[in-house]
């Protein structure tokens, strides 16, 4: 559904994306994993057309992105930090988005609005909402139009455990419908139950994309975060210093 061909992007001194080639298919839940500044968000923004790549091209639903924004009607996007016009009311935001998308009312997916109980705050202006509540609104917006592709940037950061659970349930449900879901997160435990594939990025390069079972077998670790940590260490000799410091602290304590 999404094909990324040889994408490169440079921000002045930083090579944010370096020749990335990858293809995502229906029914996959892909976790984009990597250290901070490895280019995860830039890749997502390239797919959404917010960042224009220097080289390479991207096809969504078999059509190359070239200025025509129509392909975005099949994408639901939940940003890392959702900010909205201060004086706009929550209800108005949903009304506006429906107006823009021009989609028939029957196809709307209002499940998250109901489960997060957002109707009770429909009359509140956006500026009065807390960070977590905004996050809930962003999530509800992403799922609202029943899109075939969902892109979630740090979806559970800032949500309380209950809401985070609701969101995970919802993601699982959409996964069962055979949608393509792309998630970035640092909270690996959250991803564990959802993910089918792991895409690991470092310094703008894609190190690998593997099925989660394969990854477990290769590293011999059952827990996802341990498996990833093992790979992070292996791939990057510099991180060895962490072990040294940790060990030396332990040794000092012995004496």
């Amino acid at each position, binding site marked *: 559904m999404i094909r990324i061909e040889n994408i490169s992007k440079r921000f002045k001194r930083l090579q944010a994306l370096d020749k990335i080639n990858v293809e995502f298919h229906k029914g996959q839940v892909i976790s984009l994993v990597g250290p901070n500044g490895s280019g995860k968000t830039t890749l997502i923004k390239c797919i*959404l057309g917010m960042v*224009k790549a220097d080289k390479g091209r991207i096809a969504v639903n078999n059509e190359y992105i070239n*200025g*025509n*924004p129509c392909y975005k009607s099949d*994408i639901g996007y939940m940003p890392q930090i959702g900010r909205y*016009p201060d004086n706009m009311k929550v209800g108005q935001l949903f009304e*506006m988005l429906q107006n*823009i998308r021009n989609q028939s009312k029957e196809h709307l997916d209002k499940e998250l609005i109901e489960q997060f109980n957002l109707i009770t705050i429909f009359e509140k202006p956006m500026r009065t909402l807390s960070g977590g509540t905004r996050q809930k609104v962003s999530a509800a917006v992403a799922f609202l139009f029943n899109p075939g592709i969902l892109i979630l940037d740090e979806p559970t950061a800032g949500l309380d455990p209950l809401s985070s659970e609701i969101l995970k349930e919802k993601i699982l449900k959409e996964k069962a419908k055979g949608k393509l879901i792309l998630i970035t997160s640092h909270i690996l435990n959250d991803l564990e139950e959802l993910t089918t594939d792991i895409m690991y990025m470092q310094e703008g390069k894609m190190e690998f994309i593997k099925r989660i079972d394969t990854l477990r077998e290769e590293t011999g670790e059952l827990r996802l975060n341990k498996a990833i940590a093992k790979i992070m260490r292996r791939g990057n000799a510099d991180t060895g210093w962490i072990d040294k410091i940790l060990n030396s602290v332990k040794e000092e304590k012995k004496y």
Partner: protein
Amino acid sequence: MLKLSRYILYDILRNKIIIAYTLFLLAMSLSMFQMEGNNSKAILSLMNIVLIMLPLIIIMFTTIHYYNSYEFIELMLSQPMSRTRILMSEYSGACISLLTSFFIGVGVPVLIYSPDTIGISLLFTGSALTLVFTSLAFFASVISRDKAKGIGIALLLWFYFTLIYDGLVLLILFNFSDYPLEKFTLVLSALNPVDLGRIFIMLKMDVSALMGYTGALYKDFFGGFWGLLFTTGIMFLWIIVPLRLSVKYFRKKDL
């Protein structure tokens, strides 16, 4: 396009600054007309506010508003909407709200106290300058990602058009006072919308008789139909050119 600008407009109209701006203009114009016995004197004082204060408030407000709606623009970009449409909606939202304030604050008192050619030309100039400086503000904010830099550029533009430009013109006129400069100053006036507005209003007043030969030439030119056409045309260019440039830049920009 109107779908989106309706919500932007709604958001701006609820902004406290725009309400304060309207009240400020209203208080100013009413007190001018109350204090001065002679209506044309009041218009003259009002003209100075319209030519100097109004551009400053507009360019600052619009720049800050643009930066505050940055995340909102990001959200809109994740929707199936073209960049041109998003920027134009923002622009028309800002323009409509600022024009509304101007008409309530200055338009209504002028139409009550002095509904003649001078009054109308003041309103014409004021509305044209509103649009021009909104365009310039968009240009300043689109070309720089950094908020402080954007506001700096906007302020510099205002300084240039209200203070620096006049100094430059005086410098030229003094140094080349031996030559016939009437036609040349006409061209110079077109290069600054504030000056153009000032000349356009002044020549409708009796004071133009005090300006000697140049005044007579100007009156001959600006007083007639061609003068009106010239002013409208140049103002239109001042609105369109910065706006076109910002749209062009915005289409290629990384957000």
